[in-house]
């Protein structure tokens, strides 16, 4: 059976694909912003003196990292309404992805915190900064800078995970590809275009990250 690769199909639908790509990026961005907040709180909680916060954080990280993201997405979207928590698709997916990201970022920030030299903390205390001030003005800036590479790879990972949003009919890139596939049966065009867009975006983000790391190297 002769199959001719029809670029015209790609051209006609490129705008939908690009919109889908942008949607995916936006979801990933929203998720990582919330995820960073969760990760920061949990990373500091994990170093707290009382046992309860440490156990809670460990439980959260372990539970999320061992559960498939799809199950989390479906749970948040379908099961939470039973508890009275109703959300639109976008909010629901962003929440799921943020909770997922938070678990990974907690570990990233814990490693970053451990990498802050003790002496610098001493120096902060020695000039009379309170514990809170040391954390805010000394530890966090250093930790963030050192965590930059790991945060970057987490973001790329999250961007790829936005493909899962297709399952709850969020019109991002994978959804559009599947739609094109089932509507026009142009299988090769749909999937090669989608893949190419994902790969290109990941490569661009990675290159951007390398530049960023060169400009802001680790301390």
């Amino acid at each position, binding site marked *: 059976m002769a199959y001719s690769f029809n670029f015209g199909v790609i051209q006609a639908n490129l705008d939908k694909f690009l919109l889908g790509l942008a949607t995916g990026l936006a979801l990933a961005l929203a998720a990582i912003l919330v995820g960073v907040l969760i990760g920061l709180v949990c990373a500091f909680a994990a170093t707290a003196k009382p046992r309860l916060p440490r156990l809670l954080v460990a439980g959260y990280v372990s539970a999320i990292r061992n559960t498939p993201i799809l199950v*989390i997405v479906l749970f948040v979207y379908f099961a939470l309404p039973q508890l009275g928590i109703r959300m639109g698709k976008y909010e629901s997916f962003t929440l799921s992805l943020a909770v997922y990201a938070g678990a990974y970022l907690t570990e990233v920030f814990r490693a970053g915190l451990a990498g802050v030299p003790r002496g610098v903390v001493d120096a902060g205390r020695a000039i009379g900064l309170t514990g809170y001030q040391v954390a805010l003005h000394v530890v966090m800036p250093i930790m963030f800078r050192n965590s930059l590479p790991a945060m970057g790879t987490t973001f790329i990972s999250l961007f790829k*995970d*936005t493909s899962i949003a297709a399952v709850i009919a969020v019109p991002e890139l994978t959804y559009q590809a599947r739609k094109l596939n089932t509507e026009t049966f142009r299988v090769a065009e749909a999937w090669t275009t989608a893949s190419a867009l994902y790969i*290109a975006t990941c490569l661009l983000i990675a290159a951007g990250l390398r530049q960023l790391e060169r400009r802001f190297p680790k301390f």
Partner: protein
Amino acid sequence: MEGFLHELWIARWALGQGLLLTIAISAASILFGTILGLLVGVALAYGSWPLRWLMRVYVDAVRGTPVLVLIFACFYLLAFAGINFTAVESGLFALTIFCGAHMGEIIRGALQSIPPAQIDAGRAIGLTFHRILIYVLLPQAFRQILPVWINTGAELVKSSSLLAIIGTAELLFRTQEIVGRNFMTLEFYGLCGALYFLVNFCIERLGKAAGRRFALQ
């Protein structure tokens, strides 16, 4: 609570079969994926220039693509090309390709981190490169990557849940069927998550124990 236990009892075979299939697919894909990754990794570390370039394209392309897209692509493209794979086979195919790229990169890294002096030592006692690879390099590489390999196994278990979308009757698919019947989304999606957690938790434990036994240092 009684309603849930009652429904759980009704659903026990379906869930059990789903869980079994999840484990089977994950195990098979890590097995095939590791074999593929071995070939890719060795090619990337020691291959000729065109071979390395080819493998690089494969690895970067697969790693830059979301698993779900890979699964869809394999599912639709294989069917379109006339290869009549079942959902299970198609899924296994996609996961193997995914795992192969992942493992290939890991094995390449491990092989390249072995001091070149090891190869010299092997040559000095008269081994061919082929033998050096099997008896000197790969054993060291495997010891090094053991924790990452275990981690990849857990990742595959999680990725296998995506196969539900193409109709593979593994754990998540079975859960969705059950929920479609009794609408107990909270309980059964919760249970589903807990079961995946359990499987991965066991893998994590196994990995730590194996790591302790086989650690190089």
